[in-house]
């Protein structure tokens, strides 16, 4: 099985280059991280470093993601593109102009389909109250997206899909976790805190995966290209949210591995994960994203994390050869 190349740093300290290794230094001592099997570093706490260190990790193509004490994402260190392709960027822009809506529609359709799969699991386990939302996802949402609609209308229906999904949590999550409204920033209850943290982890994973392709991260299709430097990563992470982020949350909460009283910060109205909570969440998240299965088409074992990159390849194929872009479907596992 492929190794996990992600390092999380939970304590305060300093990152340094030590010969051909990365050293992390804090009051407990020096820890060495071999550079050749590191692809990303997550700094979950305050970490200092110098430009010599950045230069070193840049050469190895390592991305670094920074989070502040509250678990909010501050930004990423993204070494200068090593797979730059002018031709592909030009073609990607042309596809944006000519075919944006189609790609965006396929993304939204797949979000609905993947949410359907996730909810269907609970429906089969006796949560019959989910029937209306399942029907709506399968029929109404899909029909609406297939119509001749504008990108604004598409974004509206995408919002509806997520809202109905959040509304359905009341039928299968314990009461102290159920949220009434999804508020992004600041998270105002435990479930929102989990969703925000999980979505950000997934988003940064996507940034790292797309870094290892030729795609231009700022030309996106569902989100407006202006929304951020990495708006394409916002696009490509969407269909994986139900599969990776929400499945992780439902499992942890359902099995009581995460509890409101124990793993959230009381001082902040339980609206933030505490350190233990973050560790539990990250562990489960990593486990899920690295789980492997047989890819039906490639006939190789792949992980969900790798499927993000494969979606990048599908997009390149669409851009280069015009083949329809069909994102990762939980049902088909490809």
């Amino acid at each position, binding site marked *: 099985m*492929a*190794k996990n190349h992600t390092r999380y740093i939970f304590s305060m300290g300093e990152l340094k280059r030590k010969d*051909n290794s990365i050293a992390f230094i804090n009051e407990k001592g020096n820890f060495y991280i071999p*550079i*050749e*099997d590191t692809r990303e570093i997550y700094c979950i706490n305050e970490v200092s470093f110098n430009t010599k260190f950045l230069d*070193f990790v840049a*050469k*190895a*193509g390592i991305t670094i993601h920074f989070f502040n004490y509250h678990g909010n994402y501050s930004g990423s260190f993204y070494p200068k593109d090593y*797979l730059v*392709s*002018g*031709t*592909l960027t030009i073609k990607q822009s042309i596809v944006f102009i000519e075919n944006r809506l189609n790609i965006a529609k396929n993304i939204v359709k797949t979000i609905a389909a993947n949410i359907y799969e996730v909810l269907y699991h609970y429906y089969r386990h006796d949560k019959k109250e989910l029937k209306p939302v399942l029907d709506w996802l399968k029929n109404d949402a899909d029909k609406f997206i297939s119509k001749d609609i504008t990108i604004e209308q598409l974004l509206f229906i995408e919002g509806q899909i997520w809202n109905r999904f959040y509304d359905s949590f009341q039928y299968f999550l314990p009461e102290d976790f159920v949220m009434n409204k999804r508020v992004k920033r600041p998270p105002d209850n435990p479930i929102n805190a989990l969703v925000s943290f999980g979505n950000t982890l997934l988003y940064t994973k996507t940034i790292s995966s797309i870094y*290892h*392709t*030729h795609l231009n991260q700022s030309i996106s299709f569902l989100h407006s290209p202006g929304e951020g430097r990495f708006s394409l990563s916002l696009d490509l992470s969407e269909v994986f949210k139900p599969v990776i982020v929400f499945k992780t949350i439902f499992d942890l909460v359902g099995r009581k591995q995460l509890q409101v009283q124990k793993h959230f910060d009381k001082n902040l109205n339980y609206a933030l994960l505490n350190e233990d909570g973050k560790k539990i969440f990250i562990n489960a998240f990593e486990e899920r994203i690295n789980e492997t299965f047989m890819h039906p*088409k*490639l006939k190789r074992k792949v992980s969900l994390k790798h499927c993000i990159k*494969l979606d990048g*390849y*599908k997009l*390149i*194929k669409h851009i*280069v*050869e*015009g083949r329809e872009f069909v994102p990762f479907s939980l049902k088909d596992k*490809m």
Partner: protein
Amino acid sequence: MITGTLINYYFHCQTQCWLHANRINLEDNSEDVRIGKVLHEIKEEKSKQAEIKIDNIKIDRITKDYLIEFKKSDSDPQAVKWQVLLYLYKLKQKGIQRLGKIEYFEKNKEQKSEILELDEANEEELLKVLDAIEKLISSATPPPPKFENKCKKCAYYEYCFI
């Protein structure tokens, strides 16, 4: 301008040749390659490789009699042969005449080598090949991939068959 890598790929696989020429270079997923690359890049800070560059071709070594190309294995001798003939041809245009020598290093095996000469017949054929490559790489889309054994180890495998 057609490089040694391109002519090598052309004989190895035309899809690969097109993708590479059109700058769709995919990261090699195999860990061995990645580790090798990382270490190589980091070491390169200290010592620059002893390659010789002429125009856009990189030559491993030139001696009084030979242009030498080193290869790890002889898995695709046809492709290497044409790569070396291209180099000989480019040298000849600069007024440098050499014989070509390919040295293979197989794991746990003796070193093997092969001598090549650019003569009238293969020079003419080389020009035809260069023409064919130009045509191939300027077409709008790559030739559809055909699954063969070599695909399993190819960096483009996932791109080709996803």
